[in-house]
């Protein structure tokens, strides 16, 4: 009897085990003819609130790595190196980002880390990269006022997104501005810059409000907007994440819409977010980015086609995905130029490197930012943007020239001086 029971258990276990083996097997890739490997870290939130946005960015980076490997990898010192990504999850938790960055550098000995989305996660990782003198590639538009030797910023600085957008609004849409944002470092800093810019150019801030991240009750904000702008005006939205959905749904219900004379400009809503919020709530609102999926160039179409082929037809490309994709190529080009994957040599070689990105030919500037195409678009019914204005390529400014504290300062990592990150021009 006892034996029979054992046989029953053992038999069933064997069946289960073989089933799971069948399920997991297969897919072992034949290794190509590479002469070696180079490990790179990919550190984004794959879980938690930010996962929705950061997944796409990580996917774009992995796609770029696959493409480079398919073309023979990185050619360094006469050797073809295969790029091997080491993925870590930042879990939408800023201290976790710092911890995982340490792990990637010390334990995995990666050549470079691609990672981060929120400014809070970047600020958490910054001390780690500075202390270990390592190199982080960061792909998101941000608030500026930072220029680290150990970070390369492939997203827009404020003068490549917020400032031209505000200029465009002042010229075309009106002088009275209402600012709405999430309550953390990016919207607060971006709005500080915007207020100085408006003061200098004859605009006026008629109101300002901040929502805690994740808050969905916007009735008080709507009341304030109606109070401050009863006949329409400009609303600049720097909300991040879920709050946007609540904001636009309730704004529409309250009649604060483009049809009633309100021009709404958002800085954190790209194609990906439009799909999540619903284009019917966003139609007619504006956004400023450096890349739109609707950008009609062969490179852009190719990028979108490849992305859909790899991740599914219903997926869309967006500015953050494009910036993430481009920075992997820029790193590979810099490594080939330096003839080394050592982060200090790559850092020197990086400045001046160019790449034919989906938005056009981009070149790395001495302040570790990229010269980028500035576009202003309007949301259409199908969730894509119609490009209203193309301001051409704009050079990045890290230290803002509207804010009195940083006026006159600049950043140039080609200069051999201790304060190259921030010095008086």
């Amino acid at each position: 009897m006892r034996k029979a029971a054992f046989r029953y258990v053992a038999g069933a276990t064997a069946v289960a085990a073989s089933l799971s083996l069948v399920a997991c097997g297969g897919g072992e890739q034949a290794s190509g003819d590479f002469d070696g490997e180079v490990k790179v870290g990919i550190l984004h939130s794959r879980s938690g609130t930010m996962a929705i946005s950061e997944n796409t960015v990580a996917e774009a980076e992995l796609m770029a790595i696959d493409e480079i490997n398919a073309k023979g990898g990185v050619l360094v010192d006469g050797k073809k190196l295969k790029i091997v990504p080491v993925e870590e999850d930042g879990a939408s938790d800023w201290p976790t980002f710092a911890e995982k960055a340490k792990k990637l550098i010390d334990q995995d000995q990666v050549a470079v880390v691609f990672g981060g989305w929120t400014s809070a996660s970047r600020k958490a990782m910054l001390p780690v990269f500075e202390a270990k003198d390592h190199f982080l590639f960061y792909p998101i538009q941000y608030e500026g006022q930072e220029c680290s030797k150990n970070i390369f910023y492939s997203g827009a600085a404020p003068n490549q997104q917020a400032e031209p957008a505000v200029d465009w609004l002042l010229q075309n849409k009106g002088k009275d501005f209402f600012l709405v944002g999430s309550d953390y470092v990016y919207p607060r800093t971006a709005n500080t810059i915007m207020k100085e810019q408006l003061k200098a150019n004859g605009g006026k801030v008629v109101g300002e409000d901040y929502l805690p991240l994740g808050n969905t009750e916007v009735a008080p904000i709507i009341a304030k907007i109606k109070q401050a702008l009863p006949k329409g005006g400009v609303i600049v939205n720097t909300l991040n994440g879920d709050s946007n959905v609540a904001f636009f749904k309730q704004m529409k219900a309250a009649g604060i819409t483009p049809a009633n004379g309100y021009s709404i400009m958002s800085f954190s809503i790209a194609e990906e977010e439009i799909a999540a919020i619903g284009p019917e709530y966003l139609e007619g609102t504006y956004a400023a980015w450096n890349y739109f999926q609707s950008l009609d160039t062969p490179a852009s179409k190719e990028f979108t086609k490849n992305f859909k082929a790899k991740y599914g037809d219903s997926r869309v490309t967006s500015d953050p995905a494009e910036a993430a994709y481009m920075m992997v190529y820029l790193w590979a080009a810099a490594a080939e130029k330096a003839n080394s994957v050592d982060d200090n040599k790559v850092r020197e070689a990086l400045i001046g490197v160019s790449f034919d990105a989906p938005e056009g030919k981009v070149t790395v500037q001495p302040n570790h930012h990229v010269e980028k195409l500035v576009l202003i678009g309007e949301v259409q019914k199908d969730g894509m943007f119609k490009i209203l204005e193309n301001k051409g390529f704009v050079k990045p400014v890290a230290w803002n020239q509207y804010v009195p504290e940083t006026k006159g300062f600049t950043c140039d990592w080609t200069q051999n001086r201790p304060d190259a990150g921030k010095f008086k021009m």
Partner: protein
Amino acid sequence: MDLLYDTLFNGLAIGSVLVLAALGLAVVFGLMGVINMAHGELMMLGAYTTFVVQNLFKNGPLQGIFPLYILVAIPLAFLVSGLAGLLLEKTVIRRLYGRPLETLLATWGVSLILQQFVRSVSSAFVIGLLVAVALGLVAPRLLPRPWGQRRWAPVLGVATWVIAGLVGIALASGLGGVRVLDQPWFSARNIDVTAPVWLRGSVDLGAVNMPTARLFIIALTALALVAVHWFLQKSVWGIRIRAVTQNRSMSDCLGIPTETVDALTFLVGSGLAGVAGVAVTLLGSVGPNLGGNYIVDCFMVVVLGGVGKLLGTVVAALGIGVLSYVIGSGSLLLVWPAMPAGLNELITFFATTSMAKVLVFALVVVFLQFRPAGLFPQKGRMVEA
């Protein structure tokens, strides 16, 4: 005068969402004393039910009556969340009555499981899960009868479930190879619930402009309140629920099936969470994390109102609604434009949504220092129980 109406309406609008969200919790926490951290996730299930119903109405024969999908979603959400709550009560909470700390931890764990469930649920996943459960339930019956009496019978029971689980996992990952079955139903992304057109506009009532979605939520809240009141005061089961709340052992002696009463109370409370889930799809985003946005507010309302009192829940929610509107919109400045500069600055400082929330929380904490049992404390002998 307009300002007064405006304030009252907006306060009512914010408050009604809080009432609806907290109503189920008031039933479960108030009548049963169960701290259910998964309450927000039961709301989320209601919101996802709305999404599914909306998609059913988008195509096919029901397309013609698409604008009415929300009315169908309400009872269905009640049912889905209610059944999920029933399952939760039968499997987890029933074993933990009278142990609030363990209940708190267990239901928090359940809330995480539910969040991950909607993120990763796919056809392959569901098939694997069903097969595992079926195998675990059926396999013991196929064994020779005498085995059940052996000393090692419990070990065999555990082993059966382990094997059933493994087979389920293997099956799910095996089927995962088939693309159609592997496609997650919702994925981790937020989903798009579009309100029907009649709930997207607004109506002018006198000088005040009211979004129809808000009016709908206020009406739904009133309806839910009346229904719950009738159920607890007039129906037989409602009277039994109150009897068990007042004195469990005496009710048991008098022949009231207390276990059924517990299950029913939990079902009703969870179902109400589902209805609240339908309502919040009209206001904000729908995603796996939806519950977390509401759970803290819900507990605040119930505790402030006085545990076990529906009237307290309503008054507390409306009070918080009006207060956060008045502080957040800075409308005091409009009433009294000539106020002293210092006060003026203070009010402007708190006149953002984030600061209003801080101030409301602070006020609630201060209030509870003086009235620890809330606005309407329980009186009489049940307090001692």
